[in-house]
């Protein structure tokens, strides 16, 4: 009798498990059709990261057959289903993996089941959640301790002293597949693959980024809460989002403009972040640009206009044929004359019918004015007066280019206050082999020189308000007296 009950219990539990197994199988086969339509071009038919587009992409698309996933919230090697779902939904910032929110949730979940089937060995055990120490809110003291830990653990070896990914070990870093890999630029949190919040950063510190040189630190910090102090310090190195500028402005200043990039005036002007993309129109093309952003601060007075540019570059490079490097360079592009309508020259440094006017700076050579009819037809303009001063420290260039406000000839633009002036940027990281058409660039933006404001706007409205209030009270008193 007992044996019969035992047999019955076993049979029922097996039957209960079967539908779940069947459901898993259904998910994976639904996931297969989504995968082949949306994912196989990069990740390959066999999930090995060798799709037709893979050779153009850096970082390369994930090889699912090894079961190694970068972003996990688990203590072991395998991510949870939710981890995989989150990456598919959010994408991976700073890479070519887009956010797939457009796909229905059901489709994304069945993709997760299909991906796991590429490396079934890895997912046999239930993943164990990574326990983080109790969260420590950000504060001056926490950030200070985080900085101490950052230096004691020597994060600067890969990430650089200021976190700009210019550390000495950077050039040798390779991922588990032997491909070169770059450390994260800690001042650009929005490029972190796993997310920019403090909790995301703490999780990455705790369990590392699998498949890359980034190790786990949960066992390597002095006290468990140091994970949070470090996360707070790293979060203090840059904003959560770049807040890219749309309309660029130049501030009117009354005093002479300093030419030193570290001068105090520049700290009082709000930074304007401008994103750059790789030049992919003219061969040789640049699908993986090194410089992805410049920060502009501009100031002008009645005599001159000055542009303060800051951008991150891991090495200060000059032309070296043996090492295949070139001089780092950056240029500001304007139309030679302001036109009455919206027409502007071709944004890629002009073309044969319309030239552009460039303020071009090169490391080691200084700044020149030039006229360009395309990226390969750049001719310096003689007789101009433009000066520049550049400072390079800890993975960042800061440059001030100054020029007279008014120009004397038609090839050079005259800057006028209050007018929308087209402007574009180009940048070359010589250390990454960028030169000529291999550059990062922007399309046309507008720059506006702000008219100087008088202080009357702070005085007149309050005075008028007080006078009106007095008048109101008088009227009220007179009205009451009648009664």
């Amino acid at each position, binding site marked *: 009798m007992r044996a019969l009950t035992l047999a019955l219990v076993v049979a029922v539990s097996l039957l209960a498990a079967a539908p779940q197994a069947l459901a898993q199988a259904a998910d994976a086969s639904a996931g297969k059709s989504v995968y082949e339509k949306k994912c196989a071009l990069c990740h390959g038919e066999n999930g090995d990261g060798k799709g037709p587009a893979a050779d153009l992409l850096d970082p390369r698309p994930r090889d699912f057959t090894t079961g190694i996933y970068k972003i996990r919230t688990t203590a072991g*090697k395998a991510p949870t289903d939710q981890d995989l779902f989150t990456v598919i939904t959010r994408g991976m910032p700073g890479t070519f993996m887009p956010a797939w929110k457009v796909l229905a949730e059901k489709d994304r979940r069945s993709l997760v089941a299909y991906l796991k089937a590429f490396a079934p060995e890895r997912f046999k055990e239930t993943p164990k959640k990574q326990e983080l120490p109790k969260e420590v809110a950000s504060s001056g003291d926490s950030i200070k301790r985080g900085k101490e830990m950052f230096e*004691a*653990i020597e994060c600067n*070896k890969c990430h650089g002293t200021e976190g700009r990914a210019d550390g000495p070990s950077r050039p040798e870093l390779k991922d588990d597949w032997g491909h070169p890999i770059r450390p994260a630029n800690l001042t650009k949190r929005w490029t972190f693959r796993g997310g920019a919040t403090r909790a995301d950063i703490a999780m990455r510190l705790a369990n590392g980024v699998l498949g890359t*040189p980034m*190790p786990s630190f949960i*066992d*390597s910090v*002095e006290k468990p809460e140091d994970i949070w102090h470090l996360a707070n310090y790293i979060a203090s190195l840059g904003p959560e989002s770049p807040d890219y500028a749309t309309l660029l402005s130049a501030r009117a200043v009354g005093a002479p403009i300093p030419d030193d990039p570290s001068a105090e005036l520049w700290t009082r002007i709000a930074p304007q972040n401008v994103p750059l993309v790789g030049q992919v129109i003219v061969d040789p093309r640049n699908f993986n640009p090194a410089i992805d952003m410049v920060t502009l601060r501009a100031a002008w007075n009645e005599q001159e206009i000055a542009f303060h540019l800051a951008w991150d570059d891991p090495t200060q490079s000059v032309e070296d044929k043996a090492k295949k490097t070139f001089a780092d360079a950056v240029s500001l592009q304007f139309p030679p004359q302001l036109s009455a309508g919206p027409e502007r020259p071709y944004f890629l440094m002009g073309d044969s019918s319309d030239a552009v006017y460039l303020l071009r700076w090169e490391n080691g050579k200084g700044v020149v004015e030039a006229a360009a009819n395309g990226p390969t037809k750049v001719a310096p303009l003689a007789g101009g007066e433009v000066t520049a001063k550049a400072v390079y420290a800890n993975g960042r260039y800061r440059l001030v280019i100054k020029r007279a406000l008014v120009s004397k000839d038609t090839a050079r633009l005259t800057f006028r206050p209050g007018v929308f002036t087209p402007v574009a940027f180009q940048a070359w990281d010589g250390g990454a082999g960028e030169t000529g058409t291999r550059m990062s660039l922007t399309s046309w933006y507008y720059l506006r020189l702000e008219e100087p404001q008088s202080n009357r706007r702070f005085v007149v409205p309050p005075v008028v308000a007080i006078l009106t209030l007095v008048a109101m009270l008088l009227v009220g008193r007179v009205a009451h007296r009648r009664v």
Partner: protein
Amino acid sequence: MRRALGGFLALALVAGAAVFVHRPAPAGAQGGGTIEATVTYTGAPQVETLKVNKDTEQCGTEAKIEKVVVGANKGLANAVVSVAGLKGAPTAKKAEIDQHGCKFVPHVVAMTPGEIDIKNSDGILHNIHTYSTANPSINKAQPKFKKVIAEKLEKPEIIKLTCDVHSWMLGWVAVMPHPFFGVTDGSGVTKIENVPAGKQTVEVWHETLGKQTKEVEVKPGQVAKVSIEMKK
């Protein structure tokens, strides 16, 4: 009646099971011999030098990547010699490897499944990054204040050990299923003790030159010398 039957059945089961229980051969049994293996290589040593541009105080200005180290009498160093097919209890002594002068010392460590102490006597950041298939791979940071990290390596396998901060650093941990192994020294010699007597197959593994085997007859209480030449 029923109780007696039940009791007899239980006894029978235990006895039956006992027949199949495998009792490991006691290590260090009387009647074991010693194997003295000499591994040689007639080719040229392969040692690459690299300029060091960081932590020169601890690492020096030049790093050596020792792919093939040949010593006196053409002896091949850093080869793991083991006796195939034996079973034995794990060694009591804990394995350890040190990061000293930005090198893994010793370059090759052989151990039975268990714990290994990874030391950092350099006082600068290293990270333990292992590449393995049977054992879970490890990537842990070892900053200067973490002098020892203990790791469990339970499955027999040859594991590659690197540091990402200092990309030239390379070490090997050979997890062996039994305690009958040795790593050759600078002159290519290693001794394996208490090997059960009889015809044994000696296996040699080297990181660059690969694997080779040779048969040797072990007599109790005697030293059996075997010489293996690694092919190019």
